Protein backbone atom coordinates (compact mmCIF):
# COMPACT_ATOMS: atom_id res chain seq x y z
CA UNK A 1 0.00 0.00 0.00
CA UNK A 2 1.34 3.38 -0.98
CA UNK A 3 2.07 5.63 1.93
CA UNK A 4 1.74 8.87 0.10
CA UNK A 5 -1.45 10.82 0.16
CA UNK A 6 -3.10 9.49 -2.93
CA UNK A 7 -6.32 7.92 -1.89
CA UNK A 8 -6.06 4.16 -1.60
CA UNK A 9 -7.49 3.17 -4.97
CA UNK A 10 -5.65 5.86 -6.86
CA UNK A 11 -2.35 4.63 -5.45
CA UNK A 12 -3.10 1.05 -6.42
CA UNK A 13 -4.36 1.89 -9.88
CA UNK A 14 -1.71 4.46 -10.67
CA UNK A 15 -0.82 3.18 -14.11
CA UNK A 16 -4.30 3.08 -15.59
CA UNK A 17 -5.96 5.78 -13.52
CA UNK A 18 -3.63 8.64 -14.14
CA UNK A 19 -6.46 10.97 -14.97
CA UNK A 20 -8.01 10.35 -11.55
CA UNK A 21 -4.71 11.22 -9.93
CA UNK A 22 -4.62 14.56 -11.67
CA UNK A 23 -8.17 15.41 -10.73
CA UNK A 24 -7.51 14.90 -7.02
CA UNK A 25 -3.92 15.93 -6.58
CA UNK A 26 -1.48 15.41 -3.73
CA UNK A 27 -1.45 17.95 -0.95
CA UNK A 28 1.52 19.33 0.96
CA UNK A 29 0.09 19.71 4.45
CA UNK A 30 -3.50 19.17 5.52
CA UNK A 31 -6.25 16.57 5.61
CA UNK A 32 -7.61 14.05 3.16
CA UNK A 33 -11.08 12.79 3.95
CA UNK A 34 -11.53 9.63 1.94
CA UNK A 35 -14.36 7.14 1.46
CA UNK A 36 -17.07 9.70 1.95
CA UNK A 37 -20.36 8.31 0.74
CA UNK A 38 -21.13 9.36 -2.76
CA UNK A 39 -22.82 12.74 -2.92
CA UNK A 40 -21.97 13.77 0.66
CA UNK A 41 -18.78 15.78 0.02
CA UNK A 42 -20.48 19.16 0.04
CA UNK A 43 -22.38 18.27 3.20
CA UNK A 44 -19.11 17.27 4.85
CA UNK A 45 -17.56 20.62 3.95
CA UNK A 46 -20.66 22.48 5.14
CA UNK A 47 -20.62 20.63 8.44
CA UNK A 48 -16.96 21.39 8.96
CA UNK A 49 -17.57 25.02 8.05
CA UNK A 50 -14.99 24.83 5.27
CA UNK A 51 -16.09 27.02 2.41
CA UNK A 52 -12.85 28.37 1.01
CA UNK A 53 -13.51 31.85 2.33
CA UNK A 54 -10.29 31.77 4.32
CA UNK A 55 -8.23 31.11 1.25
CA UNK A 56 -7.61 27.42 1.98
CA UNK A 57 -6.99 25.20 -1.01
CA UNK A 58 -9.73 22.56 -1.35
CA UNK A 59 -10.00 19.71 -3.82
CA UNK A 60 -13.21 17.74 -4.08
CA UNK A 61 -13.76 14.53 -5.97
CA UNK A 62 -17.33 13.40 -6.27
CA UNK A 63 -18.58 10.05 -7.54
CA UNK A 64 -15.07 8.79 -8.19
CA UNK A 65 -14.58 5.03 -8.63
CA UNK A 66 -13.90 3.14 -5.40
CA UNK A 67 -13.03 -0.41 -4.41
CA UNK A 68 -14.98 -0.27 -1.18
CA UNK A 69 -18.06 1.41 -2.67
CA UNK A 70 -19.02 1.57 -6.31
CA UNK A 71 -18.49 5.33 -6.10
CA UNK A 72 -17.23 7.62 -3.36
CA UNK A 73 -16.41 11.23 -2.66
CA UNK A 74 -13.01 12.46 -1.52
CA UNK A 75 -11.98 15.81 -0.07
CA UNK A 76 -8.52 17.29 0.32
CA UNK A 77 -7.95 20.44 2.33
CA UNK A 78 -4.57 22.17 2.50
CA UNK A 79 -3.25 23.52 5.80
CA UNK A 80 -6.09 22.23 7.89
CA UNK A 81 -6.09 19.32 10.39
CA UNK A 82 -9.40 18.20 11.86
CA UNK A 83 -10.07 18.42 15.58
CA UNK A 84 -11.72 15.57 17.50
CA UNK A 85 -15.00 17.53 17.63
CA UNK A 86 -14.93 17.87 13.87
CA UNK A 87 -14.25 14.18 13.43
CA UNK A 88 -17.18 13.36 15.75
CA UNK A 89 -19.55 15.37 13.60
CA UNK A 90 -18.13 13.86 10.48
CA UNK A 91 -18.94 10.35 11.67
CA UNK A 92 -22.63 11.18 11.59
CA UNK A 93 -22.77 11.81 7.88
CA UNK A 94 -19.71 9.94 6.68
CA UNK A 95 -19.52 6.87 8.92
CA UNK A 96 -17.16 5.02 6.60
CA UNK A 97 -14.76 7.88 6.04
CA UNK A 98 -11.00 7.57 6.45
CA UNK A 99 -9.10 10.59 7.65
CA UNK A 100 -5.52 11.07 6.56
CA UNK A 101 -3.44 13.81 8.12
CA UNK A 102 -0.72 14.86 5.70
CA UNK A 103 2.52 16.62 6.57
CA UNK A 104 5.21 17.30 3.98
CA UNK A 105 3.36 15.13 1.42
CA UNK A 106 3.38 12.11 3.74
CA UNK A 107 0.41 10.58 5.49
CA UNK A 108 1.42 10.81 9.17
CA UNK A 109 -1.87 9.64 10.61
CA UNK A 110 -4.51 7.51 9.01
CA UNK A 111 -7.63 6.50 10.81
CA UNK A 112 -11.12 5.28 10.26
CA UNK A 113 -13.48 7.56 12.11
CA UNK A 114 -14.90 6.13 15.30
CA UNK A 115 -18.45 7.02 16.05
CA UNK A 116 -18.72 8.61 19.51
CA UNK A 117 -21.38 7.41 21.96
CA UNK A 118 -22.92 10.86 21.97
CA UNK A 119 -22.46 14.32 20.51
CA UNK A 120 -23.24 17.62 22.20
CA UNK A 121 -24.08 20.94 20.65
CA UNK A 122 -23.65 19.89 17.04
CA UNK A 123 -27.17 18.77 16.09
CA UNK A 124 -30.55 20.40 16.63
CA UNK A 125 -33.62 18.31 17.38
CA UNK A 126 -36.31 18.79 14.75
CA UNK A 127 -39.16 17.50 16.95
CA UNK A 128 -41.22 20.63 17.60
CA UNK A 129 -42.46 19.04 20.84
CA UNK A 130 -38.93 18.78 22.27
CA UNK A 131 -37.87 21.08 25.11
CA UNK A 132 -34.60 21.88 23.28
CA UNK A 133 -36.51 23.63 20.48
CA UNK A 134 -37.72 26.39 22.83
CA UNK A 135 -35.79 29.29 24.32
CA UNK A 136 -34.14 27.23 27.03
CA UNK A 137 -30.45 27.56 27.94
CA UNK A 138 -29.74 23.96 27.04
CA UNK A 139 -27.10 22.38 24.83
CA UNK A 140 -28.46 19.74 22.49
CA UNK A 141 -27.32 16.20 23.16
CA UNK A 142 -27.73 13.15 20.94
CA UNK A 143 -26.91 9.52 21.53
CA UNK A 144 -25.27 7.95 18.49
CA UNK A 145 -26.84 4.60 17.58
CA UNK A 146 -25.60 2.15 14.93
CA UNK A 147 -27.67 3.62 12.15
CA UNK A 148 -29.27 6.67 13.72
CA UNK A 149 -29.04 9.42 16.30
CA UNK A 150 -31.38 9.95 19.20
CA UNK A 151 -32.20 13.16 21.05
CA UNK A 152 -31.27 12.68 24.72
CA UNK A 153 -34.15 14.92 25.80
CA UNK A 154 -37.26 13.95 23.80
CA UNK A 155 -35.76 10.55 22.81
CA UNK A 156 -36.82 10.87 19.17
CA UNK A 157 -34.75 8.64 16.88
CA UNK A 158 -33.60 10.14 13.57
CA UNK A 159 -32.52 7.65 10.92
CA UNK A 160 -32.80 9.68 7.76
CA UNK A 161 -31.49 13.04 6.72
CA UNK A 162 -29.18 13.49 9.69
CA UNK A 163 -27.24 16.26 7.86
CA UNK A 164 -30.41 18.40 8.09
CA UNK A 165 -30.10 18.32 11.89
CA UNK A 166 -26.61 19.71 11.89
CA UNK A 167 -26.33 23.05 13.65
CA UNK A 168 -24.37 25.13 11.16
Amino acid sequence: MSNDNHDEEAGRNETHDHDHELRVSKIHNGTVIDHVRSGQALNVLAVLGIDGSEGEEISIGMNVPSDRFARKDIIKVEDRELSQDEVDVLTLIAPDATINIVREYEVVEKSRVDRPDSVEGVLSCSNSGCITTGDEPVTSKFDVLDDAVRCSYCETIFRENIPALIDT
Partner: protein
Amino acid sequence: MRYDHLITSKQLSRAAIETVLDHAAEIDDDQSAFADKHAGRLLGLLFFEPSTRTKLSFETAMKRLGGDVIDLGSVESSSVTKGESLADTIRVIEGYADALVLRHPKQGSATMASEFVDVPLVNAGDGAGHHPTQTMLDLYTIRENAGLDDLTIGIMGDLKYGRTVHSLAYALSKFDARQHFISPDSLALPREVVYDLHQEGASIREHDGLEEILPSLDVLYVTRIQRERFPDEDEYQKVAGEYQIGPDSLAAAADDLTVMHPLPRVDEIAPEIDETDHAAYFEQAHNGVPVRMALLDLLLGETDE
Protein backbone atom coordinates in the same frame (compact mmCIF):
# COMPACT_ATOMS: atom_id res chain seq x y z
CA MET B 1 -32.70 4.16 49.26
CA ARG B 2 -32.94 7.60 47.76
CA TYR B 3 -33.75 8.69 44.22
CA ASP B 4 -32.34 12.04 43.24
CA HIS B 5 -35.02 12.62 40.68
CA LEU B 6 -37.80 10.56 39.15
CA ILE B 7 -37.88 11.35 35.44
CA THR B 8 -38.82 8.14 33.67
CA SER B 9 -39.78 4.61 34.61
CA LYS B 10 -36.92 3.46 32.37
CA GLN B 11 -34.45 4.56 35.03
CA LEU B 12 -35.91 2.24 37.66
CA SER B 13 -34.81 -1.32 38.28
CA ARG B 14 -37.28 -4.00 39.27
CA ALA B 15 -35.91 -3.82 42.82
CA ALA B 16 -36.42 -0.05 42.98
CA ILE B 17 -39.98 -0.38 41.72
CA GLU B 18 -40.72 -3.08 44.28
CA THR B 19 -39.31 -0.91 47.06
CA VAL B 20 -41.79 1.83 46.15
CA LEU B 21 -44.72 -0.60 45.85
CA ASP B 22 -43.87 -2.28 49.18
CA HIS B 23 -43.60 1.09 50.87
CA ALA B 24 -46.94 2.18 49.35
CA ALA B 25 -48.54 -0.97 50.76
CA GLU B 26 -47.10 -0.18 54.17
CA ILE B 27 -48.52 3.35 54.01
CA ASP B 28 -51.85 2.07 52.69
CA ASP B 29 -52.15 -0.17 55.76
CA ASP B 30 -51.72 2.67 58.21
CA GLN B 31 -51.54 6.17 56.74
CA SER B 32 -51.74 7.77 60.18
CA ALA B 33 -48.33 6.37 61.09
CA PHE B 34 -46.80 8.73 58.51
CA ALA B 35 -48.94 11.77 59.36
CA ASP B 36 -46.10 13.90 60.75
CA LYS B 37 -43.21 12.39 58.84
CA HIS B 38 -42.48 15.48 56.76
CA ALA B 39 -43.96 18.25 58.87
CA GLY B 40 -42.60 21.65 57.91
CA ARG B 41 -41.46 20.54 54.48
CA LEU B 42 -42.71 22.04 51.24
CA LEU B 43 -43.41 20.48 47.87
CA GLY B 44 -43.37 22.83 44.89
CA LEU B 45 -46.02 22.13 42.25
CA LEU B 46 -45.21 23.38 38.77
CA PHE B 47 -47.99 22.43 36.39
CA PHE B 48 -47.65 24.07 33.00
CA GLU B 49 -50.56 22.00 31.70
CA PRO B 50 -54.00 21.38 33.15
CA SER B 51 -54.23 18.50 35.62
CA THR B 52 -56.87 17.47 38.09
CA ARG B 53 -56.09 14.15 39.70
CA THR B 54 -52.32 14.14 39.42
CA LYS B 55 -51.98 17.55 41.01
CA LEU B 56 -54.62 16.90 43.66
CA SER B 57 -53.16 13.54 44.58
CA PHE B 58 -49.65 15.00 44.96
CA GLU B 59 -51.11 17.73 47.16
CA THR B 60 -53.04 15.19 49.21
CA ALA B 61 -50.01 12.94 49.53
CA MET B 62 -47.73 15.74 50.74
CA LYS B 63 -50.32 16.97 53.25
CA ARG B 64 -50.93 13.45 54.54
CA LEU B 65 -47.19 13.25 55.21
CA GLY B 66 -47.52 16.36 57.37
CA GLY B 67 -45.99 18.69 54.80
CA ASP B 68 -47.46 21.41 52.65
CA VAL B 69 -47.38 22.53 49.02
CA ILE B 70 -46.63 25.73 47.17
CA ASP B 71 -48.22 26.02 43.77
CA LEU B 72 -46.98 27.95 40.77
CA GLY B 73 -50.64 28.33 39.84
CA SER B 74 -51.92 28.57 36.32
CA VAL B 75 -49.41 29.43 33.65
CA GLU B 76 -51.50 32.45 32.64
CA SER B 77 -50.98 34.13 36.01
CA SER B 78 -47.27 33.36 36.38
CA SER B 79 -44.07 34.93 35.08
CA VAL B 80 -44.00 32.33 32.33
CA THR B 81 -46.31 34.56 30.31
CA LYS B 82 -43.59 37.21 30.52
CA GLY B 83 -41.33 34.85 28.61
CA GLU B 84 -39.35 33.35 31.47
CA SER B 85 -37.63 30.09 30.57
CA LEU B 86 -38.45 26.86 32.38
CA ALA B 87 -34.81 26.67 33.48
CA ASP B 88 -35.14 30.03 35.27
CA THR B 89 -38.55 29.30 36.78
CA ILE B 90 -37.41 25.98 38.19
CA ARG B 91 -34.23 27.42 39.69
CA VAL B 92 -36.23 30.10 41.50
CA ILE B 93 -38.84 27.70 42.91
CA GLU B 94 -36.05 25.31 43.93
CA GLY B 95 -35.04 27.91 46.51
CA TYR B 96 -38.49 27.77 48.10
CA ALA B 97 -39.22 24.05 48.21
CA ASP B 98 -37.76 20.75 49.42
CA ALA B 99 -38.87 18.86 46.31
CA LEU B 100 -40.51 19.74 43.01
CA VAL B 101 -43.21 18.20 40.84
CA LEU B 102 -43.21 19.26 37.19
CA ARG B 103 -45.73 18.82 34.42
CA HIS B 104 -44.85 20.49 31.15
CA PRO B 105 -46.10 20.13 27.56
CA LYS B 106 -42.64 19.62 26.04
CA GLN B 107 -40.98 16.22 25.82
CA GLY B 108 -37.70 16.11 27.70
CA SER B 109 -38.67 19.05 29.92
CA ALA B 110 -38.20 17.07 33.12
CA THR B 111 -34.82 15.75 31.99
CA MET B 112 -33.70 19.28 31.24
CA ALA B 113 -35.15 20.72 34.46
CA SER B 114 -33.39 18.07 36.53
CA GLU B 115 -30.05 19.33 35.21
CA PHE B 116 -30.70 22.72 36.81
CA VAL B 117 -31.81 21.74 40.32
CA ASP B 118 -30.41 19.89 43.33
CA VAL B 119 -33.66 19.17 45.17
CA PRO B 120 -35.50 16.01 44.06
CA LEU B 121 -37.62 16.57 40.96
CA VAL B 122 -40.55 14.37 39.97
CA ASN B 123 -41.80 14.23 36.39
CA ALA B 124 -45.59 14.41 36.41
CA GLY B 125 -45.83 14.26 32.62
CA ASP B 126 -43.64 15.74 29.86
CA GLY B 127 -45.65 16.04 26.66
CA ALA B 128 -45.98 12.69 24.93
CA GLY B 129 -42.97 11.45 26.93
CA HIS B 130 -43.22 9.89 30.38
CA HIS B 131 -45.45 9.84 33.44
CA PRO B 132 -43.65 7.60 35.94
CA THR B 133 -45.78 8.26 39.02
CA GLN B 134 -48.90 7.19 37.11
CA THR B 135 -46.96 4.05 36.24
CA MET B 136 -46.21 3.38 39.89
CA LEU B 137 -49.86 3.54 40.85
CA ASP B 138 -50.75 1.42 37.80
CA LEU B 139 -48.22 -1.21 38.86
CA TYR B 140 -49.50 -1.08 42.43
CA THR B 141 -53.05 -1.68 41.18
CA ILE B 142 -51.94 -4.51 38.90
CA ARG B 143 -50.00 -6.13 41.73
CA GLU B 144 -53.01 -5.93 44.07
CA ASN B 145 -55.42 -7.36 41.50
CA ALA B 146 -53.51 -9.73 39.23
CA GLY B 147 -49.90 -9.88 40.42
CA LEU B 148 -46.85 -8.77 38.45
CA ASP B 149 -45.48 -12.24 37.75
CA ASP B 150 -46.64 -14.32 34.82
CA LEU B 151 -48.85 -11.44 33.73
CA THR B 152 -50.68 -11.12 30.41
CA ILE B 153 -51.78 -7.55 29.83
CA GLY B 154 -53.57 -5.82 26.96
CA ILE B 155 -52.96 -2.09 26.58
CA MET B 156 -55.51 -0.49 24.28
CA GLY B 157 -56.33 2.91 22.77
CA ASP B 158 -54.05 5.81 21.95
CA LEU B 159 -50.63 4.22 22.26
CA LYS B 160 -48.88 6.87 20.19
CA TYR B 161 -49.41 9.96 22.30
CA GLY B 162 -50.30 8.26 25.59
CA ARG B 163 -47.42 8.90 27.95
CA THR B 164 -48.98 6.69 30.62
CA VAL B 165 -48.75 3.81 28.16
CA HIS B 166 -45.10 4.41 27.34
CA SER B 167 -44.10 4.61 30.99
CA LEU B 168 -46.12 1.53 31.90
CA ALA B 169 -44.64 -0.51 29.05
CA TYR B 170 -41.09 0.37 30.10
CA ALA B 171 -41.78 -0.62 33.70
CA LEU B 172 -43.50 -3.87 32.76
CA SER B 173 -40.48 -4.85 30.69
CA LYS B 174 -38.70 -5.38 34.04
CA PHE B 175 -41.27 -8.02 35.03
CA ASP B 176 -42.40 -11.35 33.65
CA ALA B 177 -45.14 -9.76 31.57
CA ARG B 178 -46.51 -10.45 28.10
CA GLN B 179 -47.63 -7.13 26.69
CA HIS B 180 -50.25 -6.91 23.93
CA PHE B 181 -50.76 -3.48 22.36
CA ILE B 182 -54.12 -2.89 20.71
CA SER B 183 -54.71 0.23 18.63
CA PRO B 184 -55.57 1.55 15.20
CA ASP B 185 -52.49 1.77 12.96
CA SER B 186 -52.44 5.55 13.17
CA LEU B 187 -52.13 5.44 16.97
CA ALA B 188 -49.70 2.53 17.32
CA LEU B 189 -46.75 2.67 19.72
CA PRO B 190 -44.01 5.07 18.58
CA ARG B 191 -41.08 3.26 16.96
CA GLU B 192 -38.82 4.71 19.65
CA VAL B 193 -40.77 2.88 22.35
CA VAL B 194 -40.85 -0.38 20.38
CA TYR B 195 -37.09 -0.06 19.86
CA ASP B 196 -36.51 0.41 23.59
CA LEU B 197 -38.80 -2.47 24.55
CA HIS B 198 -36.97 -4.79 22.16
CA GLN B 199 -33.66 -3.62 23.64
CA GLU B 200 -35.02 -4.52 27.08
CA GLY B 201 -35.98 -7.96 25.82
CA ALA B 202 -39.66 -7.34 26.55
CA SER B 203 -42.33 -9.71 25.25
CA ILE B 204 -44.55 -7.49 23.10
CA ARG B 205 -47.09 -7.96 20.33
CA GLU B 206 -49.15 -5.41 18.44
CA HIS B 207 -52.76 -5.96 17.35
CA ASP B 208 -55.46 -3.93 15.66
CA GLY B 209 -58.32 -5.58 17.53
CA LEU B 210 -59.04 -6.90 21.02
CA GLU B 211 -61.07 -9.97 20.13
CA GLU B 212 -58.35 -12.54 19.48
CA ILE B 213 -56.43 -11.91 22.67
CA LEU B 214 -59.15 -10.93 25.14
CA PRO B 215 -59.63 -14.44 26.60
CA SER B 216 -55.92 -14.67 27.52
CA LEU B 217 -55.72 -11.37 29.39
CA ASP B 218 -55.29 -10.92 33.14
CA VAL B 219 -55.46 -7.13 32.80
CA LEU B 220 -56.95 -4.84 30.17
CA TYR B 221 -55.62 -1.28 30.37
CA VAL B 222 -57.79 1.11 28.35
CA THR B 223 -56.79 4.64 27.35
CA ARG B 224 -58.72 7.45 25.75
CA ILE B 225 -58.58 8.07 22.03
CA GLN B 226 -58.73 11.81 21.65
CA ARG B 227 -60.87 13.55 19.08
CA GLU B 228 -58.11 16.00 18.16
CA ARG B 229 -55.91 13.19 16.85
CA PHE B 230 -58.25 12.75 13.87
CA PRO B 231 -58.81 15.00 10.87
CA ASP B 232 -62.60 14.76 11.04
CA GLU B 233 -65.42 13.70 13.32
CA ASP B 234 -66.55 10.75 11.15
CA GLU B 235 -63.10 9.20 11.12
CA TYR B 236 -62.84 9.66 14.88
CA GLN B 237 -66.24 8.08 15.55
CA LYS B 238 -65.44 5.13 13.31
CA VAL B 239 -62.08 4.38 14.89
CA ALA B 240 -62.89 5.24 18.50
CA GLY B 241 -65.99 3.04 18.40
CA GLU B 242 -63.87 -0.03 17.74
CA TYR B 243 -61.84 0.51 20.90
CA GLN B 244 -64.64 1.00 23.39
CA ILE B 245 -65.68 -1.46 26.06
CA GLY B 246 -69.46 -1.86 26.10
CA PRO B 247 -71.64 -4.04 28.33
CA ASP B 248 -71.14 -7.09 26.05
CA SER B 249 -67.52 -6.57 25.09
CA LEU B 250 -66.13 -8.68 27.92
CA ALA B 251 -68.24 -11.80 27.38
CA ALA B 252 -65.20 -13.79 26.23
CA ALA B 253 -62.94 -12.45 28.99
CA ALA B 254 -61.69 -14.40 31.98
CA ASP B 255 -63.88 -13.99 35.08
CA ASP B 256 -61.04 -12.38 36.96
CA LEU B 257 -60.02 -9.93 34.22
CA THR B 258 -59.03 -6.58 35.75
CA VAL B 259 -60.01 -3.51 33.70
CA MET B 260 -57.98 -0.35 34.28
CA HIS B 261 -58.02 3.21 32.91
CA PRO B 262 -55.85 6.19 33.91
CA LEU B 263 -58.97 8.44 33.81
CA PRO B 264 -60.55 10.74 32.83
CA ARG B 265 -62.65 8.55 30.56
CA VAL B 266 -65.18 9.80 28.07
CA ASP B 267 -66.89 6.81 26.51
CA GLU B 268 -64.12 4.22 26.32
CA ILE B 269 -65.67 2.14 29.10
CA ALA B 270 -69.45 1.95 29.47
CA PRO B 271 -70.80 2.81 32.96
CA GLU B 272 -72.28 -0.72 33.17
CA ILE B 273 -68.75 -2.09 33.59
CA ASP B 274 -68.31 0.02 36.75
CA GLU B 275 -70.57 -2.31 38.67
CA THR B 276 -68.76 -5.48 37.65
CA ASP B 277 -65.84 -7.14 39.44
CA HIS B 278 -63.68 -6.28 36.43
CA ALA B 279 -63.62 -2.54 37.17
CA ALA B 280 -60.50 -1.36 39.00
CA TYR B 281 -60.14 2.19 37.66
CA PHE B 282 -61.50 4.05 40.68
CA GLU B 283 -59.38 1.95 43.00
CA GLN B 284 -56.49 2.78 40.65
CA ALA B 285 -57.12 6.52 41.05
CA HIS B 286 -57.34 6.17 44.84
CA ASN B 287 -54.01 4.36 44.84
CA GLY B 288 -52.44 7.59 43.60
CA VAL B 289 -52.26 8.89 47.16
CA PRO B 290 -50.44 6.07 48.99
CA VAL B 291 -48.14 5.53 46.01
CA ARG B 292 -47.22 9.22 45.78
CA MET B 293 -46.81 9.33 49.57
CA ALA B 294 -44.36 6.45 49.24
CA LEU B 295 -42.45 8.17 46.43
CA LEU B 296 -42.27 11.50 48.23
CA ASP B 297 -41.22 9.81 51.45
CA LEU B 298 -38.40 8.01 49.62
CA LEU B 299 -37.35 11.14 47.74
CA LEU B 300 -37.37 13.34 50.84
CA GLY B 301 -36.35 10.61 53.26
CA GLU B 302 -32.61 10.84 53.54
CA THR B 303 -32.54 14.62 53.67
CA ASP B 304 -34.97 14.56 56.58
CA GLU B 305 -33.02 15.74 59.64
